[in-house]
């Protein structure tokens, strides 16, 4: 660690010297000029100036000229620029979210995430002074758990079948079919859930409301299914053929090979697929918004998924964002921050798991 810290500056100076000696003076001037123009454009835009167009035109002219004179360097600069812009957009979104959620955090402190009493007044109670995200976090947790219970076993089973058992012709039809499922817009799932699932549960089982966590969880689970199948199937098919052949050569049956060699070897890839599916379920908005009842509270008992309450972090933002102002708006932004961090943790974990699997498999080859 210390070594890296000490090496850092030295390596940067070396890279800089390298860049200086390998690049023509004109190209360096172009890179510098583009940077200045962009910085100027951003600043002017930020100030709301009508002169923003000047640096933008300057930027375009510089790039245009550079493209003709030093095409390679211009391409290098532009691709580098797009990377910076992507990262900058992410940074701006995060800081905007944090900035806008500061007021409610100042008002509520940690209570924002932990307050559970008084149950009826957690959202806008005490004359619009109390805004607690706890009921919505519980709602998100419940729908996500139900979705996972639906999607994880089905998804893994589907992936195993497609990758290990299905005849080629079946796989060629089923795999694109499942990928197509991911392309169906979420409102379509939501609409089916609203008109069929909600209505069925309400008329046949007399649920207290039209729409509940159970119905929404099932629909979200179906939506998360293709993510899990696709990623898990990829993981299963990257298990080296030599490992499977070895097992078969030892006299084990195909099922024994799948069960004891392929699945364990791909386990981390499969679990990263499940994690991605959970992330998808957690962030799902449209279907849940049309299906849930938008009342906030804690089901009693905790596992009463048919109960009267129904609101998640995503649905509250979608449902109330249009009308909200002041602290309520800030609380919705705080909901966005919570969601962002939860999904970020999930996808980093899944990336890490995948990275470990790749390392492990390569090591064993």
């Amino acid at each position, binding site marked *: 660690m210390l070594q890296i810290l000490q090496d850092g500056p030295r390596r940067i100076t070396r890279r800089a010297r390298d860049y200086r000696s390998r690049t023509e003076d004109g190209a360096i001037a172009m890179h510098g000029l583009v940077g200045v123009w962009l910085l100027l454009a951003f600043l002017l835009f930020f100030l709301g100036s009508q002169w923003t167009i000047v640096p933008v035109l300057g930027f375009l002219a510089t790039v245009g000229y550079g493209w003709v004179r030093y095409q390679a360097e211009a391409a290098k600069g532009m691709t580098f620029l797009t990377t910076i812009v992507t990262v900058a957009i992410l940074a701006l979104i995060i800081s905007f979210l944090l900035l806008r959620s500061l007021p409610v955090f100042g008002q509520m402190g940690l209570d924002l995430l932990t307050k559970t009493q008084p149950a009826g007044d957690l959202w806008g109670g005490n*004359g*619009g002074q109390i805004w607690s995200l706890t009921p919505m976090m519980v709602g998100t947790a419940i729908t996500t758990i139900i979705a996972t219970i639906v999607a994880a076993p089905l998804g893994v089973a589907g992936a195993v079948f497609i990758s290990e058992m299905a005849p080629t012709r079946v796989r060629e039809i089923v795999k694109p079919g499942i990928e197509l499922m991911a392309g169906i817009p979420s409102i379509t799932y939501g609409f089916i859930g609203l008109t069929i699932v909600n209505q069925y549960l309400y008329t046949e089982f007399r649920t207290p409301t*039209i729409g509940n966590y159970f119905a929404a969880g099932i629909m979200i689970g179906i939506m998360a299914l293709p993510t899990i199948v696709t990623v898990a199937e990829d993981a299963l098919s990257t298990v080296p053929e030599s490992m499977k052949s070895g097992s078969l050569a030892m006299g084990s049956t195909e099922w024994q090979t799948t069960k004891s060699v392929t699945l364990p070897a791909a386990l981390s890839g499969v679990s990263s697929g499940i994690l991605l599916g959970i992330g998808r379920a957690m962030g799902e908005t449209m279907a849940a918004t049309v299906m849930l*009842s938008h009342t906030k509270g804690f089901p009693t008992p905790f596992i009463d998924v048919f109960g009267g309450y129904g609101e998640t972090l995503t649905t509250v933002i979608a449902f*109330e964002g249009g009308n909200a102002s002041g602290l309520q708006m800030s609380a919705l932004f705080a909901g966005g921050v919570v969601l962002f961090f939860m999904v970020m943790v999930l996808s980093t974990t899944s990336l890490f798991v995948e990275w470990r699997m790749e390392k492990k498999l390569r090591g064993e080859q």
Partner: protein
Amino acid sequence: MDTSVLTGDGSSTVFPITNTASSYWNSNPETGDEDYWPSEWAEEYGTDKRLADYFAGLYGYEATGERSNPAFRVSIALSHSGTGVEGVMEERVDIGDSSASAEAELAGSDVSDEEMDNFVDHVVGVDGQPIVVSREIADAGVEQITLDELKKIYRQEITNWSEVGGPDREILALGRAEGSGTDTSFRANVYGDPEASISPDQRYGQNQQLAQAIGQADNAIAYIALAFVDPEGDTPPLGLEIDGTLYEYGKNLGSKEYPLSRDLHAYTWEDSSRKEAAFINFCLSDFGQEIFVQGNNYFKLPQDRLETQREMVAPSNYE
């Protein structure tokens, strides 16, 4: 004589009224244009002038006698109540449409009382939301409930229809999104406090979704915009009894005492100019009330309030 464009901005609820009025005004149709200025109406006013020519003429504007060329044009923009009220105050627009009073819209901002006095409040119509129930409940004989029962239903203190004279079935209380104007005015008018805590079973963002849910359910109660009431269909209305008075759909929901009604305002700033008065009087005329207010599914002002409002902008004030 000021003939520059009369501008307005504000509430999407009031917008249909003032905007329809402005469209009629700008087109300045001739009498006998049966779609826009029918002869029966013209006869009632005893005039053979074009529509805007007649109403502007009351205020001393000269008739142009040309279609699409009124004495002055009217342009109404669409935003929010708060924007309309601020627009009038900052004199960006002449008329500020608002579905709540200016005091309520500016509550919490640092506008002094003297400045508030500069607002001139013209009420051009009344918005009233009837209580509706699912078809099955209406068919089972529930025709009215009391205000007290309504309050208890939305606080989960009454949870079965049998408690209000209906079948033995749970009540599904439907409401609107928290923070929306309709939700706030429901709390303010029914419970007397815009911050009152209520706990409906389900909330919906739009009238359309609400109407669909009432149709799907067989045990629902809701308050909904007038246009979505269907006495013979899925959303039959329910009478509301308050202190012995029964408020019924099609009869007296527009009255000031009905808790789910609200005035629709067209504010002006520091008195009303001749131009503003001419247009507001146009909205307040019998023709305007019928076509622009009732035609857009709002309630006409009751006769006594209409008289008071008309006096504020009477042509005699501008002679």
